């Protein structure tokens, strides 16, 4: 019997409280809430993996809507880049969320464990910072014809930063992969879309993060609809989780500027790697608790 089984109200309040903390951690780590949420819901609360993923996807849309609204207004999020790359991502997400109904839970747990570990490693990466200014010699013709470019005012640098996407086709391929992971695992996969924008498209990290937060809401909506139609979105789980993660993400984004100490990030990463290892072991039938 799970410790929460004493009272449904306590169970829901605990879900809400945990989601708030997860939202804060997700915002601070830059992983998003879902990546941490699914293993916590399944391992600590004993919630069915499908319900956990359904709730996580709903929370991704809630946080994306909240964050993207502000970032679009600030001009950091590039709506053309977001829409363009949302196409391969959403196709990947639809493929991934359809696979959930076919793949056995242990496969999902194994992929999840590996993906969360990889996402954790990504947060160790140093952001590339402001990219070099746009030059015509290395311009990708597709980026030029599709106007995958823009400019924003960088407060830290005190100047306007112009940018243009590079290696568009490779970037689109990576976005498809991120979409598959999002749909298959019930997460926003923001860590992977930001990585694709940084490594392949060579967009400034601030633009990449802001545009990703707009994109993942669209992607998660497609996956979540499939989960909903399959009966994997339980209102009593998705409700408190979505509200909690949203509250946590708002709090997390407020405290984020004060938490730049790398030691704190490393401490949080211990949590990520613990969850990663637990999910992988769980896939092979080993329960840590």
């Amino acid at each position, binding site marked *: 019997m*799970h410790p929460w089984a004493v009272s449904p109200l306590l*169970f829901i309040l605990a879900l809400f409280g945990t989601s708030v903390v997860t939202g804060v951690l997700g915002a601070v780590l830059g992983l998003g809430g879902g990546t941490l949420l699914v293993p916590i819901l399944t391992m600590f609360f*004993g919630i069915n993996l499908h319900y956990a993923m359904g709730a996580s996807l709903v929370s991704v*849309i809630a946080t994306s*809507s909240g964050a993207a609204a502000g970032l679009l*207004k600030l001009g950091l999020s590039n*709506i053309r880049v977001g829409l363009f790359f949302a196409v391969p991502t959403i196709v990947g997400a639809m493929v991934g969320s359809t696979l959930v109904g076919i793949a056995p839970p242990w496969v999902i747990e194994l992929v999840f464990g590996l993906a969360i570990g990889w996402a954790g490693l990504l947060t160790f990466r140093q952001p590339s910072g402001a990219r070099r200014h746009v030059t015509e010699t290395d311009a990708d013709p597709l980026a030029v014809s599709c106007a995958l470019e823009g400019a924003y005012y960088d407060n830290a640098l005190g100047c306007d930063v112009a940018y243009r996407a590079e290696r568009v086709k490779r970037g689109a391929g990576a976005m498809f992969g991120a979409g598959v992971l999002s749909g298959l695992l019930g997460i926003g996969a923001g860590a992977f879309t930001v990585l694709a924008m940084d490594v392949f498209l060579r967009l400034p990290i601030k633009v990449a993060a802001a545009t990703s937060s707009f994109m993942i809401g669209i992607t998660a909506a497609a996956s979540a609809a499939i989960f909903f139609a399959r*009966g994997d979105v339980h209102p009593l789980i998705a409700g408190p989780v979505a509200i909690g993660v949203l509250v946590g993400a708002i709090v997390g984004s407020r405290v984020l500027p004060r938490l730049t100490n790398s030691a704190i990030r490393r401490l949080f990463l211990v949590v990520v790697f613990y969850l990663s290892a637990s999910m992988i072991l769980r896939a092979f039938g080993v329960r840590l608790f």
Partner: protein
Amino acid sequence: MKAAEVLASRVLFFGGVLSVALMTLGMVGFAVRGGLEPEFIAESHRVEMGAARSPAVFVSVTEVARGLGRWPVDPLAVVASGVLLLLVTPAISVASVLVVFLRGGDRRYAFVAVVLLSALLVSLVLVGGR
């Protein structure tokens, strides 16, 4: 700021706020009505999904509408309507941006928005079509 960005940000913000408000209202209503029974926890711990679906789970717009149309209103249908509103918010945002692109004569991005909207509608039809 560009028109597309302004419109998209407003749709996302108000869609998000309204859906969270509906979810909160439904959750509180359900708790006040005393619907929180211990069976819910056992149900959330179920190992196998499928055949025996939980009565608390809605799988279509029709089911949610039925719950909302009943008197007294089913609080879980209110939570589910918040979830549904959240699901359609990105689609409404893309649709509104499509209008801006069409008005501005940006055919290329109007086409991209149509492709995206079609993909979203295909997945949403799964919910509405039952």
